[in-house]
């Protein structure tokens, strides 16, 4: 789990030199407990997914300082699944836990307030996220244009293909904190950059690409953190109406900030009633291949999907006996089991708690 690194100390003010190597959550909790009388902070060292419904139900407000889209999607669908409707379909306010989310990247930041089932949720606006920076393998291999392409190529290919790397064992995985590794990757990426006439491969950039470093700036973090605590105060005391419902902040050139309302998406798979997703696949696709494609498809990112259709279980991994009974299906072709135009129900508890996605399958020869 997350421990304190020397490089955190310039901006994570609850930590001191003596804390390096200790648990972040525990150290931060201890610091606040010591500093602020009457406040009781409990630290938990685990993945957010490990906590159950009862744990999340015990809170009145959830404020998130998460560092990934996956984690935000998970907590969003978790809090929305806890929010009940009464028999007439109205939101039961006693089960609604407001979710405040903040995030920064360099001089830019954002904060938002999500009132489950009442305002737009994280999933409603998922398509507003900038595309993830991944480069197609063919670009990396044959037509690199950016210094990043050269570094990624070394990471993906050269590293595993080169044996007898100087001072590095053949089985060693890339460690972004090991300067020997970074130096080696930097040297190889520079060679490749020279070959293709690309400039700009530096040691710092190599480190940034390998460690997926997102620049963090204390002042931006402070602004976003205070926006989040402001909202928590307003929601807790009702002293003012809360943010409606999304604030962006840009400190790149001067200071710019704007607050607006994201609309709820009627077809949101988490808080709306979604129509079936259409998928066209080759009739030769096996169930196993189809499950792998769900892991890669950015609409799903389901790494361990359960697949069912009306009256038929295709594959269900979580229950031992059912997994054993449906395992032979993995090698079968989808078209043997799922008729053209049929609706498949896909779930993945780890990615999307409490959500089932309906997928309409059609076949087309490649």
């Amino acid at each position: 789990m997350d421990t304190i690194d020397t490089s955190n100390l310039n901006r994570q003010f609850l930590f001191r030199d003596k804390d390096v190597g200790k648990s972040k959550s525990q150290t931060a909790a201890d610091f606040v407990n010591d500093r602020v009388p009457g406040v009781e902070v409990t630290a938990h060292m685990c993945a957010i997914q490990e906590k159950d419904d009862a744990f999340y139900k015990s809170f009145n407000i959830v404020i998130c300082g998460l560092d990934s889209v996956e984690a935000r999607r998970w907590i969003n669908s978790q809090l929305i699944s806890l929010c009940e409707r009464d028999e007439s379909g109205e939101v039961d306010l006693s089960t609604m836990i407001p979710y405040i989310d903040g995030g920064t990247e360099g001089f830019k930041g954002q904060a938002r307030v999500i009132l489950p089932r009442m305002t737009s949720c994280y999933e409603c606006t998922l398509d507003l996220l900038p595309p993830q920076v991944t480069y197609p393998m063919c670009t990396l291999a044959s037509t690199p244009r950016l210094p990043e392409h050269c570094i990624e190529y070394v990471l993906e290919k050269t590293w595993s293909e080169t044996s007898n790397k100087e001072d590095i064992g053949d089985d060693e995985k890339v460690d972004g904190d090991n300067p020997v590794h970074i130096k080696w990757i930097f040297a190889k990426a520079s060679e490749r950059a020279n070959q293709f006439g690309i400039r700009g491969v530096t040691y710092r950039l190599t480190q940034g690409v390998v460690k997926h470093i997102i620049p963090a700036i204390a002042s931006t973090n402070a602004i976003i953190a205070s926006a989040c605590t402001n909202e928590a105060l307003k929601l807790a005391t009702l002293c003012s109406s809360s943010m409606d419902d999304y604030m962006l902040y840009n400190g790149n050139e001067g200071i710019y900030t704007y607050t607006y309302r994201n609309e709820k998406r009627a077809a949101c798979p988490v808080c709306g009633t979604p129509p079936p997703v259409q998928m066209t696949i080759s009739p030769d696709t096996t169930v196993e291949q189809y499950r792998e494609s769900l892991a890669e498809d950015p609409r799903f990112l389901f790494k361990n999907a359960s697949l069912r259709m009306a009256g038929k279980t295709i594959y269900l991994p979580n229950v031992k006996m059912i997994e054993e009974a449906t395992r032979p299906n993995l090698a079968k072709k989808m078209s043997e089991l799922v008729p053209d135009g049929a609706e498949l129900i896909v779930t993945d508890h780890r990615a999307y708690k409490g959500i089932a996605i309906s997928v309409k399958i059609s076949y087309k020869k490649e």
Partner: protein
Amino acid sequence: MIGFKQKKKLEQEQKTQQATASVTGIVSGGEVRKKGYEIRVQKDLDELEPKWSDNLKTENVDLLNHFTLTLSPDEGIWKNHAHVFDISVPDEYPIKPPKVLCKTKVYHPNIDQEGHICLNILREDWKPVLNLNAIFTGLHFLFLEPNPSDPLDTEAANVYEKDYDKFKRIANNYMRGNYSKY
């Protein structure tokens, strides 16, 4: 003209359907042929904790509306003794709770000799947000903390409160296949 009662009934049915749709996430586009419980059971099974999912069986993996759970309590009087439960999921699940019967004969204040179980979340306190995890945890809890103040087998509850040693003896006899109550 439809009569008032009929209209009321129709409205009620619509409401139930809407509630089902909002709980299961099914779009009621008129084309849904799958039964209401199916998606929800799939999600429940997906979320099941290993201690339940490793001990759950079904004779029909396609329907997924009938299960047997082998539950061996990890503490208390019935520790490590396998109890088999029969779980039937109605089409209206999760609006209606599953029907659960205990197939193993057991001497317990909240389980009678026919295997009926008195557990609040299986009847009066059932809510559609509850799931199979919650039910199995509830059943397990009955073995850890029997509740003699709200008994189903009043005689067993009486013995449990007045003569705990005798209760333990009889319960142990049951586990060995001796169903005498002395």
